[in-house]
């Protein structure tokens, strides 16, 4: 795909040309991400209900709790978070670099491959072909598909970043660039070690823990932080304070986020658990550095443009959740508190709070800012209010009671926290349904107004049929 004519345009009116180049591919990724969020929240709700009503749908192997629960997590992590992360990264990298998105077609094609991979993995788990591991529950065969899909999208993002107008890279660009490269590396590494070299015994689990630790502590964190590092200064109209802190944070988070994730009593050599504790403590220094930088940037100011105030407030909430969960992580990384929390439903609840409450909310807020600029039409304000309330309350409601209940009642016991969590899941489902309908409606309205969407409308229609 040649981008010459677009570049000439960019000189005349950079922002508009940048948005036009992003429009199709970014909206395609964002739309399929939101569709996967809907899939996630539906299946998570179903999984919760199955715990309360043990005889419900017991005749169907496809809907066993042990199948829909990992499948729903796959939809959340690989379907929703990664795709929306890529969409937002593409927009930020081209905006920060003041350059058009290079080869946006790769984004669409890579996105299609990625969606095919997630769909096959999702169906594979429901069908009983799960790999039995927790970080990478999908059948091993879909991993190459996911890898190539991501690499295609990544190629476009890396090229866009290389063609940036200013030589200087801002922290937002470091974080997003690093995230874009990091996930394919760990994905390929884990695939090769587990499925190609057939890691024996608990080595397979160690690789799996290594993957999920890298996925959460490096990939998701970096996407969330990169988005915050772009939007918080941009929305307040201030320059980012404390670039040195951000730099320190970047390297510390990368170094210590890439190792660890082994629980205190795991049946592996004891140095692995000790290493995990050490890295968790050092990782927190990176979190503090990043927090100082962000805090000094936004201290005492509100969004410069009132239309951004919603996204801005959501991002501030997400930043608070990020720091809170990170502080909890350090506390529970020590063997004493760690063995209290180990195996309880505190663990998954905290993971959900981190991935949806921090990364998910950040990316949704970014979508609120990006979407009107790309589609030329805003979301319906009333539905936006409903979906925000439902998603925020849903995330908190699904995680906080479960986490507290898990800590209080211990493992192998389901306290009443689980019942409250289902109310949260229900709210989350309502919220993502409204968000989906809202986005769908806005896209349809936009297609009447804007020609740029017609090129990908076939893709969207296919996607609708698929989900």
């Amino acid at each position, binding site marked *: 795909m040649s981008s010459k004519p677009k570049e000439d345009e960019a000189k005349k009116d950079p922002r508009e040309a940048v948005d036009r180049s992003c429009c199709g591919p970014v909206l395609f990724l964002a739309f399929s991400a939101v569709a996967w969020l809907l899939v996630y929240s539906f299946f998570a709700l179903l999984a919760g209900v*199955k*715990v309360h009503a*043990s*005889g419900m749908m*017991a*005749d169907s*192997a496809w809907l*066993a*709790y*042990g*199948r829909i*629960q*990992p499948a729903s997590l796959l939809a959340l992590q690989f379907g929703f978070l990664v795709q929306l992360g890529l969409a937002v990264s593409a927009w930020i990298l081209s905006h920060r670099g003041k350059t058009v998105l290079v080869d946006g077609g790769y984004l669409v094609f890579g996105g299609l491959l990625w969606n095919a991979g997630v769909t096959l993995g999702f169906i594979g*788990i429901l069908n009983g*072909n*799960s*790999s*039995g591991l*927790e970080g990478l529950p999908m059948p091993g065969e879909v991993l190459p598909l996911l890898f190539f899909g991501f690499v295609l999208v990544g190629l476009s993002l890396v090229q866009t970043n290389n063609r940036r107008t200013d030589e*200087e*890279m801002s922290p937002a660009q*470091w974080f997003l*660039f*690093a995230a874009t*490269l990091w996930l394919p590396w760990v994905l390929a*590494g884990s695939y090769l070690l587990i499925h190609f070299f057939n890691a*024996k*015994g*608990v*080595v*397979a689990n*160690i690789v799996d823990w*290594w993957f999920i630790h*890298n996925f959460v502590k490096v990939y998701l964190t970096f996407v969330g932080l990169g988005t915050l590092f772009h939007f918080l200064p941009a929305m307040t109209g201030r320059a980012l304070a404390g670039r*040195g802190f951000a*730099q*320190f944070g*970047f*390297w*510390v988070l*990368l*170094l210590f986020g*890439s*190792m*660890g994730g082994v629980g205190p*009593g*795991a*049946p592996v*050599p004891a140095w*692995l658990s000790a*290493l995990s504790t*050490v890295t968790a403590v*050092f990782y927190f220094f990176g979190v503090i550095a990043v927090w100082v930088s962000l805090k000094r940037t936004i201290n005492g100011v509100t969004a410069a443009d009132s239309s951004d105030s919603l996204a801005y407030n959501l991002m501030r909430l997400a930043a608070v959740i990020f720091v809170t969960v990170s502080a909890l992580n350090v506390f529970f990384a020590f063997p004493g508190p760690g*063995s209290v929390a180990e*195996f*309880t439903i505190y*663990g998954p609840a905290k993971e959900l709070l981190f991935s949806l409450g921090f990364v998910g909310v950040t990316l949704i807020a970014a979508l609120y800012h990006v979407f009107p600029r790309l589609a030329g039409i805003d979301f319906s304000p009333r539905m936006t209010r409903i979906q925000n309330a439902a998603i925020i309350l849903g995330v908190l409601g699904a995680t906080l009671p479960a986490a507290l209940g898990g800590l209080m009642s211990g*493992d*192998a016991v*389901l306290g009443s926290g689980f019942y409250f969590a289902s109310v949260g899941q229900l709210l989350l489902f309502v919220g993502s349904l409204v968000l989906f309908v809202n986005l769908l409606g806005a896209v349809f309205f936009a297609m009447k107004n804007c020609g740029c969407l017609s090129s990908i409308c076939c893709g969207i229609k296919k996607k609708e049929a698929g989900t």
Partner: protein
Amino acid sequence: MTIGLSFLCGLLASSVSYFMLGLWWPVALLVGGFAWLAFGLLDVKMNSTFTLLGGMLLIFCVSLSAMVLRANDQLSGLQFANTQDEEGTEFRYPVPLLGQARYGEKIYKASGCVACHTQQVTHESVELDVKAMAGEKNHAAAQEAVSRFYRSTGRKTSGGAALGLPVGEWETIETGLNPADASKARNFLAAAGASVDVQVRFRGEDLMQNEHSNPEGRGWGRRRSVAQDYLFAEPPMLGSVRIGPDLANVGARHTRDALMRILLNPRIIRKDSKMPQHRFLFEEADEGEQGRHIIQDGDKAYKPTADAEALVDYLLSLKGANYPLPEAPVNQPFTSSLPDPAPAPAEEAAKTTQPVEADK
């Protein structure tokens, strides 16, 4: 970057290379100094993709080698170990899955049992009790050794053995010692010529219940799980959340019939069970069909499919946390209080030293 921040980076680099990568300390210092210089004096700018990419590749290699490859080096050589069952019959452990159990493992994997059940028994701590017996000849020396032990570990020297060791009788020196203190007590007493007896107790919610030493035990295994247990698991389904009980030792806890009923409808066994029913592993029995395998649930009768049989075969094969291994011994009571004829002194000494060393 300021000089202070770059110094922190250097400190970080050197401590990582010394403590985690285990490099020789001058090399670690060099690495730290290099990082300090690179970030501070040479002022590496984070503006080129090359800088970022270089740093990332370095960190990726460190992460992969420090965590994954090192663990693989350590674990890939695991072989069979000798162990014994409760009756004392020796066998080679672990036993590969036999018959339908291998297929049952696939059913376990496909049904996602790992979402609610772990297969790893943990322990919280190990405690050792020490007893000693002194003869007339070495009584004074043994008494001195006991006081020396109490002084060196900062214990109160009143009451119990401190008042005086009886001659020719076993006397408890101390209970609930950690391995380091226990080996100290053993060394002092053995040097003074007294006979020493050590009891090893493992504590932890997951282990067998014992009124005195482990009152909170849930009886999920006799010892903690170690990497050796999963030599033949494809893959080991360790799990990270316990919504239900741990299954590492389930084969030793339940019978075939009980497991079948739990799979069909757990509330037949436990009224308040939260476990989902797995009716898809069963089919309705024909009218008038009789046999042990028929399960009544309410007004319907079910019989297990081949999948259910295989799954239960697999579950019954899970007995890993039962058999002692050198790196994961089970509780060892005082040999002196066993009803059996006392073993020869040399053998006894070997037995008492073994667990202490194994836990270091």
